[in-house]
């Protein structure tokens, strides 16, 4: 990994983290529309994977989509304004937190139905294959989603059609309140890959270097016509399932244990120790991001609300 890539990824991770920390505050301190599902703790996954993607590669995301969007390159102003339900939001206030999308960078959209993005990503992969230009498509989804019919059908279709799709399962231990060991009798979701005849890989989702390395192979294979891969990234969410959910179903100890492996902290250590970057460089990035986020808030505040009947424009093309 060269320095440029490393810094690019670091910045993206920090953007996601700070974006959501800001949001958390906003939700605490003023009336915000809708709800949100935070990605804190899982940043390495979106960033490590998306670092391999071009603008014309496709991504489908989930209810927990802010991270994927930012990692794929959606402008933060547009994401923030969408959280504010403003006309300048990347979906014009039509979708909110659970449906953020930006086609100009290949982000096909966060989808609020668990698992539903998986076959849609397969379909985008079909287009990639049909065009034959080496594009790929990525589906992000959770451990919970791996028990949906859409997971099974979507991956199987991609496998038998040899579509250039990377299926990225973010196993953050819980589907809402329910531990994955209470929803499946296996330890590794990646093991399901064998049932579709595709490679499956377990990845340390807290280590962006590992995510980057393994997803790189999968993306490469897909671009070359080698078909799909299932990557299971072991990760953890540091916040509640949604907004202020208290997570009484898990222990403080478990949370603290995982926080020791905070992906941003881990990566900082690597950057400072192994890549010999200076603390100051990182701090400057942090400060840049802070400014960017603040600006996105004031951009959102300045932005107009949609008109009450704007929605009429979007029912049909």
């Amino acid at each position, binding site marked *: 990994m060269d320095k440029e890539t490393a810094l690019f990824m670091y910045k993206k991770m920090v953007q996601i983290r700070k974006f959501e920390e800001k949001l958390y505050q906003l939700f605490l301190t003023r009336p915000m529309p809708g709800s949100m599902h935070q990605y804190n703790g899982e940043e390495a996954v979106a960033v490590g994977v998306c670092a391999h993607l071009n603008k014309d590669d496709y991504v489908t995301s989930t209810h927990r989509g802010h991270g994927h969007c930012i990692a794929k390159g959606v402008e933060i102003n547009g994401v923030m304004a969408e959280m504010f339900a403003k006309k300048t939001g990347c979906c014009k206030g*039509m979708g909110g937190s659970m449906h953020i999308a930006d086609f100009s960078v290949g982000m096909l959209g966060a989808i609020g139905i668990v698992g539903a993005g998986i076959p849609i990503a397969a379909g985008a992969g079909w287009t990639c294959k049909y065009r034959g230009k080496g594009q790929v498509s990525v589906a992000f989804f959770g451990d919970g989603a791996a028990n949906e*019919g859409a997971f099974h059908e979507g991956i199987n279709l991609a496998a038998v059609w040899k579509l250039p799709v990377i299926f990225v399962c973010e196993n953050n231990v819980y589907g*809402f309140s329910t531990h994955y060991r209470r929803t499946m009798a296996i330890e590794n979701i990646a093991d399901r890959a064998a049932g579709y005849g595709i490679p499956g890989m377990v990845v340390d989702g807290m280590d962006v270097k590992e995510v980057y390395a393994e997803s790189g192979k999968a993306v490469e294979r897909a671009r070359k016509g080698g078909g799909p891969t299932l990557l299971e990234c072991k990760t953890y969410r540091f916040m509640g399932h949604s907004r202020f959910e208290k997570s009484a179903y898990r222990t403080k100890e478990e949370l603290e244990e995982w926080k020791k492996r905070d992906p941003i902290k881990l990566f900082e250590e690597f950057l400072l120790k192994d890549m010999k970057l200076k603390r100051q460089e990182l701090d400057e990035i942090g400060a840049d991001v802070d400014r960017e986020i603040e600006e996105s808030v004031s951009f959102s505040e300045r932005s107009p609300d949609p008109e009450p009947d704007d929605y009429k424009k*979007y029912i049909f093309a």
Partner: protein
Amino acid sequence: MEAKKIVDALRQALIEEMERDENIVLLGEDIAVFGGGYRVTEGLLDMFGEERVKDTPISEIAITGAAIGAAMTGLRPVLEIQFNDFLACAMDQVCNQAAKVRFMLGGQVKIPLVIRAPVGATGRAAQHSQSLEAWFMHTPGLKVVFPSTPYDAKGLLKTAIRDDNPVMFFEHKLLYGAASPGGKAKTAVDDLNEAFKPAPEEDYTIPFGIADIKKSGNDVTVVATGFMVHRCIKAAQKLGEEGIDVEVIDPRTLVPLDKTTIIRSVEKTGRIVIVSEDVLTCGVASEISAVVAENALFYLDAPVKRVSVPDTPIPFAPVMEQAVLPQEEQIIQEIKSVVYRGI
């Protein structure tokens, strides 16, 4: 203790019924350890144990199918689907299996199954805001229940649990009186008047197919469901001040539908407005309108008016969301339009 909120009324009904019949089992996503997205099943795991109160994988096909298989073989499952929008994921099991198995098998089997699901728009955009009762009304073999008060909720849920057929039981998010997961309690219940009748802590059932006249009146019939019942009652109160005497009918069960009460009311008032939170085309209001146009046409002094969500998904931004939902002012205007029409 009397239940002042629908969430408590439902929980009471579940507890009383589960104590009565050990074949009643609960399943659904996050219903056991967490106590349910809207807290309906809170505490039930501790009371009844994990064999009877079961968290499930996020697998709407499987949990609905399993509930059907269990119902076919002697259990009486009550299944919670976290948002009614996700019923789309289980549509085959609900509509092609649960609704039809007894029929296809020549009556050999009963399917005592209740599927509970929250409906209504509360700021969560198009995939978490629908009110899909009409899909299930259009599926013979299912009963469809939609209470608007704690009193009705408890009595109807007990009837649903004791019914030997699959029952779709819809619950309006704003009427629970409880917070959604991790959220501020988005609720409308504090704002409601005595029409939001509490449920007594006693065993009673409410028969299906009997509408409740929530407010009687002589000038115009309003049929409304769920949260809209209360919006219509408020509208009726305001219109009362202007001398318009509105009758508000809550069908409570959409299948079976108490046509008689609606038709009698129209025979009396000559005017009808139907208010529902589902989308217009082929919706709840369409059906009620058609029933009236078929059975009470010559009593009508004004066109049959439907007030529903126009044919659109629910947008996210509050200003747009509120624009598509039937509002009190809009209901008042529509009622006036039929009252002043043809006089």
